[in-house]
């Protein structure tokens, strides 16, 4: 009850922010909410199931390009394109998972990294359609979600909030379900879970596919909402960012990805105002987190003050 109230309060606060925030931050928070959906997906794999993937940019990119290419070349509108992105991310995750989950630990990290790199290069290779690094601009028709026009700032914020809310509540339901507990069991002790009769491969594959669905939906939403699809979104940096968000907010916490995305986004934003070297901030943040705060903000909070946090 307390948990549900907390999450609903966060959603309500974001709704209130829609009316209160100045335009610049309003646009930023809309972006952060979409990125937070991506990070939530990453958290399902990494935070709850213990699968440290370095290839989530592939799922994000798969969703983004599934939506973007269909919009640009087939004239789809935003609604079907979002569903295509969701499916694209899930399929990519299933394909990668079927192979990569035969490995574990460091090998899993490298295999996912390599698959994502191959995906990124594939985007560049088919530059005739994807226009490579230059990217594609989504036409106005593709940014029409039913009666809603996504190029309007206010509408975009509310659609991002709706997506975020659905993702957050689904995440909450997932991790509190029986399956969610099996996922955590895989993270904590795979051998023991196997002995208790759970199939590690199937559990991890399902978790990875769920993670890919989130990433794909976020990728598609990012494309149609902000009107641009480019190869850089499939690059290695978009595999590292969700890891960073989740580490910062707290791995294995439902609100951690959002908190981490928000904190990191503003950290980079402020740093870009001071210096051009904003990647330095990413690097230092990674080091500091992994050295001094491996549990992240909410992880530390849960340990000390609020053990009931999901």
């Amino acid at each position, binding site marked *: 009850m307390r948990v549900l109230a907390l999450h609903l309060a966060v959603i309500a606060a974001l709704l209130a922010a829609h009316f209160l925030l100045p335009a610049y931050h309003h646009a930023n928070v809309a972006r952060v909410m979409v990125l937070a959906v991506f990070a939530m997906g990453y958290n399902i794999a990494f935070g709850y199931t213990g699968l440290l993937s370095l290839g989530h940019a592939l799922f994000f990119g798969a969703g983004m390009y599934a939506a973007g290419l269909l919009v640009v070349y087939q004239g789809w509108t935003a609604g079907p394109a979002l569903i295509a992105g969701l499916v694209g991310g899930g399929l990519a995750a299933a394909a990668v998972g079927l192979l990569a989950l035969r490995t574990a630990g460091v090998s899993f990290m490298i295999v996912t990294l390599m698959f994502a790199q191959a995906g990124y290069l594939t985007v560049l290779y088919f530059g005739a359609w994807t226009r490579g690094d230059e990217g594609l601009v989504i036409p106005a028709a593709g940014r029409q979600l039913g009666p809603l026009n996504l190029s309007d700032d206010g509408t975009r914020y509310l659609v991002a909030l709706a997506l975020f809310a659905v993702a957050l509540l689904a995440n909450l339901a997932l991790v509190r379900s029986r399956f969610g507990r099996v996922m955590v069991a895989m993270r904590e002790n795979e051998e023991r879970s196997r002995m208790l009769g759970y199939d590690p491969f199937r559990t991890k594959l399902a978790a990875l596919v769920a993670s890919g669905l989130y990433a794909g939906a976020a990728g598609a939403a990012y494309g149609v909402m902000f009107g641009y699809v480019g190869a850089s979104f499939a690059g290695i940096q978009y595999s590292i960012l969700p890891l960073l968000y989740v580490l910062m907010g707290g791995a294995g916490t439902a609100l951690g990805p959002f908190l981490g995305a928000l904190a990191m986004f503003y950290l980079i934003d402020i740093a870009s105002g001071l210096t051009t070297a904003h990647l330095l901030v990413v690097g230092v943040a*990674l080091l500091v987190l992994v050295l001094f705060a491996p549990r992240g903000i909410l992880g530390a909070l849960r340990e000390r003050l609020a053990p009931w946090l999901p």
Partner: protein
Amino acid sequence: MACTPTRWITPRNPSDLEAGAARAPAFALVSLGPLLLLALMEGLVAAAVLALTAVGLSLVFGVMRVVNVAHGEFFMLGAVSAWFVTQWVPGPPALAFAVALVACPLIVAGVAALADTLVLKRLNYNPEATIVATIGLLYIIQQLALSLYGPDARPVPAPFTWRLQLPWFGYSGYKLAVVAAAGAILLAVWLFLRRSRAGLVMRATQIDGETARAFGINVDRVYAGVFALGAALAAVAAVLIVPIQQAHYLMGGDPLLLSFIVVIIGGLGSLRGTLVAALVIGLSDGMISMFFAPTLAKILATLLVALVLVFRPQGLFGGRA
């Protein structure tokens, strides 16, 4: 690991134009033979540099079980510091280059030892945490290079400009010297590991760190030394290649990817496998990128690596699991 959509280790320096100029009419005029010879020589240069870089990565993984994602940045640091050294040292290019060849690996080794002590040691060499930490190092080193060195690619003059004149094309003598130097350094590393006491200590730590510690070996120092040695090997490779390929702050991406490919195909932690794989991959890279689109070659190579790791984790050449 920012991958520029250019070629891999193959040269892109104006000083190499003669080989390139020979390449264009070669398609039209000369038969396939000289073209294959040129590809073979280019491949040998790529393989030599790749072998040095990859042995460094392999050594670090073999002894410390650390996947060093920042390895390519140590490579870049070697090249960039070589540019600074050749700017500061007066006199003929050969002297400046010789100074760079000695000083730069030492500088990079120092940076690596510092990173090991300040970061990796405090993580207890946990494999997953160290990967995240070395990703952080990658970003930090790359950004510092961008801030201090700038976004331009800058050339370093070769120590000598002698050319080997073949019947079909002229070939840079320096490139052949690179192959020879890389061979000599690899031999020295092998002798160091096999014959010296320090090498024995490293191998003992690789086989069983706990027992080594029980026998009074300072494992922390061994780890710092191995990490520094691995970084220094990447730096040496970079100094050797920098007269052929200019120094740039993003140049670490491709060597990192290729070294990963080599180390994995050769079998993680197996030095002999690494050498064989470096030769095969370097040569085939030289060949493939001469006849096919480099991006396609890269896609196939990364997929191959992923599949090797999935289906044959001991590597294609490594017998030892």
